[in-house]
C-alpha cells in the first residue's frame, strides 16, 4: 500500500502536506526550524534540477552558480539600490534565465557531456566574478541582505519562512509532476531514453533541452533570492563549485527521475553536515564518497530503489 501511495501523484503530495503540517510540533527551537528551512530551499532547487538531470538526462554542474547569481542579484538590488524584493527576485530570474538560455542554446545542439563541461565553467566564472567584484558584492566576505518585503509587509523569522518555503516546495513539486506527466514531459524523458527516437517522431529535442535547462536554472535563481532574504547574509560559496556538486549529489542520492526522491536527497545531505559537525574538513570527501557509493550500489537512488523493494514485497 505504501508503494502504491508513493507512486500515485497525489498520494505523495498528501504525505508531504502531512509532514509539513505536523513537523512544527516536533521542532523545539529556531535552530531546528532553520535546518528544515534549508532542507526545503535545497529541495526546491533539486526538484528543478532533477527534471534536467533525472528525467532528461542532462548533467549540470553549474546550478550553484545560478543559485548564487539569483542571491547576489537580489542582494545588490535590494541592499544597494533599494529595489522592492519581488522586483529584484524577478530581475534575478530574468538574468539567470537569459544566461542559461544563451549558454545552453549553442551547447545543447551537441550531444554528449558538453553541457556538464560548459556549466562547470559557467559556475566557476560566476563565483569568481562574485568574489572579485568586491566593490558591489563585498567580495569573499559576503554581504548583508535586508529582509523580504512585500507591499510594506516584512517577512521575518523562522516560523513565517517555514510556511513560505513549505508552500513553495509543494508548489514546485506540483509543477514538476505536471511537467513530467504531459506531452512535453514525455518528450523530455524520451530525450533521455533515446534522443534519436524522439526526433523521428517529431520532437525538437534541442528546443526542449534548452527550455528545461532554463526552467531548472530559474528554480535555482528564485531560491537563491529567497535564501538571501531569509539568511540575511550571502557569500560567494553559494555560487561555488561545491554547492553545484552538492545539488547534483542530492539528485543522485534521492533518486534520478524521482521528484519525491529529490526531497529525501536534500533532507539527508542537509542533515548530514549538521550531524557530522566535527568533521567539517572532510565534508567534501564524504559527499564524494556518498555520490560514488550511490552510483555503484544504488544507481537508481534511494526512493526508486526502496519503492521497487516495497513493490517486490507486495507481490
Amino acid at each position, binding site marked *: 500500500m505504501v508503494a502504491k501511495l508513493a507512486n500515485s501523484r497525489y498520494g505523495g503530495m498528501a504525505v508531504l502536506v502531512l509532514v509539513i503540517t505536523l513537523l512544527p510540533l516536533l521542532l523545539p527551537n529556531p535552530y531546528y526550524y532553520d535546518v528544515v528551512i534549508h532542507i526545503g530551499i535545497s529541495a526546491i532547487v533539486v526538484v528543478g534540477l532533477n527534471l534536467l538531470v533525472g528525467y532528461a538526462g542532462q548533467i549540470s554542474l553549474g546550478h550553484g552558480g545560478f543559485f548564487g547569481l539569483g542571491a547576489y542579484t537580489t542582494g545588490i538590488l535590494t541592499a544597494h539600490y533599494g529595489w522592492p524584493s519581488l522586483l529584484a527576485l524577478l530581475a534575478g530570474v530574468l538574468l539567470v534565465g537569459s544566461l542559461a538560455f544563451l549558454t545552453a542554446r549553442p551547447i545543447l545542439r551537441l550531444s554528449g557531456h558538453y553541457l556538464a563541461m560548459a556549466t562547470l565553467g559557467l559556475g566557476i566564472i560566476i563565483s569568481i566574478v562574485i568574489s572579485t567584484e568586491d566593490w558591489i558584492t563585498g567580495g569573499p566576505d559576503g554581504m548583508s541582505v535586508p529582509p523580504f518585503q512585500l507591499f510594506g509587509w516584512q517577512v521575518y523569522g523562522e516560523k513565517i519562512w517555514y510556511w513560505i518555503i513549505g508552500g513553495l516546495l509543494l508548489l514546485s513539486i506540483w*509543477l514538476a509532476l*505536471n*511537467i513530467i*506527466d*504531459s*506531452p*512535453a*514531459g*514525455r*518528450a523530455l*524523458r*524520451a530525450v*533521455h*531514453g*533515446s534522443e*534519436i*527516437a*524522439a*526526433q*523521428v*517522431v*517529431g*520532437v*525538437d*529535442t534541442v528546443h*526542449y533541452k534548452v*527550455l528545461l535547462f532554463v*526552467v531548472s536554472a530559474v528554480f535555482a535563481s528564485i531560491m537563491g533570492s529567497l535564501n538571501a532574504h531569509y539568511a540575511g547574509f550571502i557569500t560567494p560559496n553559494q555560487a561555488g563549485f561545491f554547492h553545484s556538486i552538492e545539488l547534483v549529489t542530492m539528485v543522485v542520492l534521492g533518486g534520478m*527521475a524521482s521528484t519525491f526522491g529529490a526531497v529525501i536527497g536534500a533532507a539527508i545531505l542537509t542533515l548530514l553536515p549538521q550531524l557530522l559537525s566535527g568533521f567539517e574538513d572532510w565534508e567534501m570527501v564524504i559527499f564524494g564518497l556518498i555520490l560514488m557509493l550511490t552510483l555503484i550500489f544504488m544507481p537508481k537512488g534511494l526512493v526508486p530503489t526502496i519503492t521497487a523493494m516495497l513493490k517486490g514485497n507486495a507481490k
Partner: protein
Amino acid sequence: MSLLRVESLSKSFGGVHAIEELSFEIKPGTIHSVIGPNGAGKTTLFNLITALYKPTTGKIFLADQDINGKKPYQLARLGMSRTFQNLQICMNMTAVENVMVGRHLHLNSNFLCAMFRLPQVVNGDRACREKAAGLMEFVGTGKYVHADANAMPYGALKRLEIARALAAEPKILLLDEPAAGLNASETGEIDQLIQKIAETGVTVVLVEHDMKLVMHISDYLLVLNFGKKLAEGTPDEIRANPEVIAAYLGTS
C-alpha cells in the same frame, strides 16, 4: 506523382562510398523494399532519407519538397516516420508512454500549459493514452499496455517501435529490418502486420534480410550492392534478374 524521390544520391564516409549515384522513386500506397547483401548501404540509405545523415551529393524529395537541411523532427511533420534496426525504445518509460511519445505532433506540447496542467493538456493526454493503447493492440502487444518497456521481450519491443511510428500518423513509414532476430512464426506475424499497415494507406519502405518475407509482401524492390543500384522492379522481375542472383544469392 511520387511520395519519395531520390536523385543521384551519394554518401561517403572518408574514402568509403556507402551510397553512390542512387536514384529511385517510391509511389504512394505501395510496399517498397530495399534489399542487398550486408554492407550494401541499406541502413545508410534510410539514415539519409530520414535526415540523420547529410548526403555528400544528391537530393531527396518528400512529397516534392527538398528535404535538404531539414532536421529529423521536421520530416516527421511532413509525414515521415521510421523504426530502427537496433531498437530505440525509451527504457525509462512505460510501454504505452513510448507510443504516446509518437503522438507528440498531435498534442499540445507547450511547456507552460503542461506546467499548470490546463484541462486541454489533461484531456488531450487521456485521449492520447487510449489511442496509444489501441495502437499497441493493433500491432499485437496489447497485453503489455500496463508494462514498463524494460519488462518486454525483444519481439514485442520491435512491434512497440512500429506502434510508436504509427502513432505519428505518417504518410510514409520506414521499417529497418523489422523481422531481424525474430523466429519464423514471429516473422510471419510481422509479415501480416506490415500488410495490415499498408492497407490503411500508409506507404511502407522496408529494409529486410528475410528474402521470403520481402518477396512475399513487396510491390516493388530496390536491390543495392556496394551502394549502387543493382536492379529495381517487381518481385517477379527481381527473381529472374541474373545480376541479383549473382550478387545476393551467390553464383553456383
